[in-house]
């Protein structure tokens, strides 16, 4: 009995000795369980590809002690994801891969009661340009031919894109307004499905991000006609921009990571550090180049300003759309 007691005492002592340095380490916040890595879009689209790439880099470089578990919540133009993240029971383990519906969906659906400024800025991984694509069998090779074709079809030209009021519809609406085009618009749940239906010629044109269309472009199925970037893209040097055509418009999809509202400062610092490492990795820099994304690095304060600016811009764009 005595012996046991003594043993217990010494074990407790040993445990204390081990516990002391452990506590010092614990001040640096570390995730204690798998991280809910929510994606604002369905599987296969641009945001999804990026999320899975980031997850893979983090795993490959062993940057996290707990895995990032991708969780597609694309419903309702990302509203599903916004609700999920803003009501998360454990904000320290919930982060969100965003696109521009981060700005548009709360604007269009005030009743959701989402205030994006309550979210926690983590990292701006880059911005993704938009390109107008047609199928090679359409015979269209230039933007001028495209405009002529759409006008000739008089309202029967079909384009696909993501849900109403989302990025694709904004770009197409601007283009339609600028060139007086009457386009039939079919909403899909993600850019992957849109690209697939252009490849199968179920629809006639799309404004996919380069990453979504690249495989089909390289196989020779898709033809790029017009870019909505500020400058011509290095990977598509022959594709003119809409700016060159005399319209002061450019549009990018943000590829940013944000934390759930109410995330602790320590956790936010952890994720900011984590995604800085991902951003600086060779793989991510290579991805930016190969998928034609533009870098746009910002710190947390700059991100908040950027959000405010984007909300303002999108308010104007949506108002112009009559939303």
């Amino acid at each position: 009995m005595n012996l046991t007691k003594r043993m217990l005492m010494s074990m407790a002592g040993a445990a204390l000795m081990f516990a002391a340095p452990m506590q010092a380490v614990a001040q640096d916040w570390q995730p204690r369980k798998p991280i809910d890595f929510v994606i604002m879009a369905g599987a296969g689209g641009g945001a999804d590809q990026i999320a899975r790439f980031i997850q893979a880099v983090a795993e490959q470089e062993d940057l996290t002690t707990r895995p990032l578990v991708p969780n597609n919540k694309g419903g309702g133009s990302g509203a599903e994801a916004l609700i999920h993240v803003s009501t998360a029971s454990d904000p320290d383990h919930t982060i969100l891969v965003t696109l521009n519906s981060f700005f548009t969906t709360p604007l269009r659906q005030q009743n959701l009661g989402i205030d994006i400024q309550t979210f926690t800025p983590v990292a701006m991984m880059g911005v993704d340009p938009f390109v107008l694509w047609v199928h090679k069998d359409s015979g269209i090779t230039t933007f001028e031919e495209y405009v002529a074709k759409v006008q000739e079809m008089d309202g029967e030209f079909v384009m696909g894109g993501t849900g109403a009021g989302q990025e694709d519809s904004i770009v197409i609406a601007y283009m339609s307004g600028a060139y007086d085009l009457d386009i039939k618009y079919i909403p899909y749940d993600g850019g992957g499905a849109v690209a697939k239906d252009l490849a199968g010629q179920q629809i006639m044109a799309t404004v996919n991000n380069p990453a979504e269309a690249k495989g089909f472009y390289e196989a020779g199925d898709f033809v790029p006609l017009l870019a909505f970037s500020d400058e011509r893209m290095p990977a598509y040097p022959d594709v003119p921009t809409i700016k060159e055509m005399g319209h002061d418009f450019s549009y990018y999809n943000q590829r940013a990571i944000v934390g759930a509202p109410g995330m602790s400062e320590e956790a936010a610092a952890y994720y900011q550090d984590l995604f800085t490492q991902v951003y600086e990795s060779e793989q991510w820099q290579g991805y930016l180049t190969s998928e034609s994304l533009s870098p746009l690095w910002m710190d947390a304060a700059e991100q908040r300003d950027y959000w405010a600016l984007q909300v303002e811009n999108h308010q104007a764009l949506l108002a112009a759309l009559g939303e």
Partner: protein
Amino acid sequence: MDVLLLLADGMLLSLQPLNLVMILLGVTLGLFIGAMPGLGSVNGVAILLPVTFLVPPGSAIIFLAAIYYGAMYGGAVSSITLGIPGASTAVATTFDGRPLAQQGRASLALVTAALASFIGGTVANVLFTLFAPLLASVALSFGPPEVFALMLLAFATFVGLGGDDIPKTVFSICFGLVLGAVGFDQISGAPRLVLFDYNGFLQGIGFLVLAIGVYGIGEMLWTIDQTRGDVTATTPKMTIKGMASDTKEAAKRGWKGTMIGSFLGFFVGVLPAAGATPGSLMSYGVAKMVSRKPEEFGKGSPDGVAAPEAANNSASTGSMLPMLTLGIPGSPTTAILLGGMVIWGLVPGPRLFVDEQEFVWGLIGSFYISNVAALLINLAFIPVFIWMLRMPFTILAPMIFVLSIAGGYAATRDMFDIWLIVLFGLGAFFMRKFDYPLAPAVLAIVLGPIAEPTLRQSLLLSSGDPSIFFTRPVAGPITIIALVLIFLPAIKVVRRMRDERKPAS
């Protein structure tokens, strides 16, 4: 015969010691992941993805594909032994697997499931090997009207699923459709049917939540009610001889379902966005429709176990096809595999078969090997699974309850879903009490969210003209067959009513 040479190379590659170890490990892990309610192949592949960075890319994807395969086999285990679907792909397996187990024929159900899975996987592998590029173009030719027509066909096969009571079946389908519509409208982005303003409903009703509620909790309540806890849980014995005779019986009474599941499951799996769950449910419906003894379905028909099990394995190979050839995942699990491939520097898409021949054929070769490994490992574990059934139901019932709740929570990590599970369990119990068939509701909640957006996309394409479903070369015949199947029973009912009235008048 180039293809066969490439395939032979691929098989040799997957028989290399490292790859073979990966296959055996993956299949065994997958088997248990699949058998755990709530943990499906999606979670398994996601959790184990990091492990794969320790080995070369070729071995890594072989490992993940083996888990995927193993999980499809494993899903049947808890569906049959406990009546809780191990994964959403195995829900249809409970329809007949569970009754068989209750009749003391669990070993027959498990053997049938294993054999059907094996054949489904093999048929799919052969189709994949021979026709991959052709099938990719078939997948592309399916636009919104074609997908909707296919969904209509699936509903048509299920009108006959609920026995003879057509009105109750239709009610059950409608009930499922309404539940499937809860959440966000994909086309307009507006929330709808957010019952009682609970935020939990905004995310829609998860299929697995419904399935665990209906089949886990609901089934448990039903059994308690029927037997007052005094269950003659039958004492199944496992002998080599018994297994041999089960194999014979499975081959005799399950071959039809296996064939239907193998082919139908594959084609549904090839279509992006559909995946193995609709494939297995549709195969069950078709198997019942063409069966000479449809009345056996739902009461323990080996065909009813074979069809969904063959289909879910077949569909899991099928869903690899759009991922590899088009870069578009055919199921949630392949979406995760896709992420893995991108980081390994492999670009899925039209050029993968040309640029990365060794990788592609190594993977296809590994499908064949994994399939054989999964069959053998699964058969070896059957006695262990059977052993669980020897426990008295008074011990088993609390276990089912705990597994249902834990499994439901594991899937979404949301307390709200647990309350839903309990609610659905009670609802299912009372629906059964009043003789409402449950399977059609379960089917509707899976297919509704695919059918509805494609219907609306099609009508947008045609400016509201429904003739789009009849005039397109692929959609047309499917729609017509579906409509005939839907109205056939209705005509029967009308005739019978007329016949009944005649003598009275």
